């Protein structure tokens, strides 16, 4: 524990549009996590046979840099990274209006520069922002946050040491407007009551993060409040 309350998030910093070459990008610092997300597309599908006739294909690569952890991580994609790529893609896909871009692909790259537990959630938070930055029509933003258990007490947003010492970890991806959960995994064990408590805590935190995401988008275009609202409406309608 680092002096936070049981239900307190780690410090969060979000930045949108940090990369020039990508169509959309975002950078997140969540506690000591540092993650870059980049979006390319919608663009022509290569190889052609993966294209779908009625919507865009969403591809996702989650990758940890060799220098992101205490011990050097092999840069080759591990089984864990492949799994995370898949669950991150699946948690974001429902938010993307991919039917507007049939026969194309949307490529999503999540690069973990520094890892400190909860990278999949921070990855989702930043990736969703990068998608919005790319001008891809979204139903809404997706926020991610984890809850867990240490010494029999349910706590929010575990850091690396807390995760390793703790009894359970429960990463959540959540869409506030439709009140939908896009990702729910559990490591360790929780009782039914604890699970409910952790879930409520995580969802609450996702709502807070969601507001910060909107703020980050507004900041990029440094416009008045109502204009940014308009953009969001336009994106939802687009």
């Amino acid at each position, binding site marked *: 524990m680092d002096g936070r309350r049981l239900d307190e998030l780690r410090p969060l910093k979000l930045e949108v549009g940090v990369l020039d070459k990508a169509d959309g990008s975002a950078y997140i610092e969540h506690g000591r996590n540092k993650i870059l997300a980049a979006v390319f*597309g919608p663009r022509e599908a290569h190889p052609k046979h993966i294209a779908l006739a009625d919507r865009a294909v969403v591809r996702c690569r989650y990758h940890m840099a060799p220098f992101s952890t205490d011990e050097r991580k092999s840069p080759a994609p591990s089984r864990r990274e492949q799994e995370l790529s898949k669950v991150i893609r699946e948690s974001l896909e429902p938010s993307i209006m991919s039917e507007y871009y049939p*026969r194309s692909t949307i490529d999503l790259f999540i690069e973990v520069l520094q890892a400190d537990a909860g990278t999949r959630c921070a990855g989702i938070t930043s990736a969703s922002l990068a998608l919005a930055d790319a001008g891809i029509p979204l139903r809404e933003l997706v926020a991610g946050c984890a809850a867990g258990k240490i010494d029999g007490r349910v706590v929010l947003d575990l850091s690396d040491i807390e995760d390793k010492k703790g009894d359970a970890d429960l990463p959540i991806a959540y869409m506030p407007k439709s009140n939908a959960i896009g990702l729910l995994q559990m490591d360790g064990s929780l009782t039914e009551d604890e699970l409910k408590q952790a879930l409520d805590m995580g969802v609450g935190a996702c709502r807070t993060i969601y507001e910060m995401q909107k703020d980050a988008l507004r900041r990029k275009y440094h416009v008045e409040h109502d204009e940014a609202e308009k953009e969001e409406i336009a994106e939802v309608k687009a």
Partner: protein
Amino acid sequence: MPFKGAYIPRLDDIVLGRVTDIGMSGWQVDICSPYPAMLPASETPMHRGRDTVRQDLRTIYGVGDLMIAQVIAFDRTRDPLLTTKGRGLGKVSSGLVARIPPTKIPRMIGKKGSMITMLKKETGTDIVPGQNGVVLVTGRDPDQERVAVEAIYMIEREAHTTGLTDRVKAMITERMKGTKIGQ
């Protein structure tokens, strides 16, 4: 108004494209969209029912050539088809090109063309706004072209603000002082 977005072709749109490949009966054209466009040989004014097998298509458009074209067919299930038959269409041989998000083209044109008319008048250039976000600027003097391109990027940055036309106009007047025409 969205800030960014991919270009989705629509019927009758004027676009600027670059030739990426030459086939047996036409060209493949990159129009900065998720969908690559085809320009059939029969849709060029030079064609006139000639035998495409005998005539070398490279003499009409080579790879890398820039052209102004019009979308004549697109239905989301097949790639867009282009034509270069018609007034103002065809190969581009001079000028400067600016690329902005296609969502901001309407802002660059303005209400009833107010913005683009001002741009043309103040910089003394001709401006072709491709609906795909590629804008062609041609003028007699390279300085004029540069000022116009600068103005276009200013519109891109400040597309969501009001009173933009006047501010762009002021900027152009300021810049034009340095050019031959302004003096």
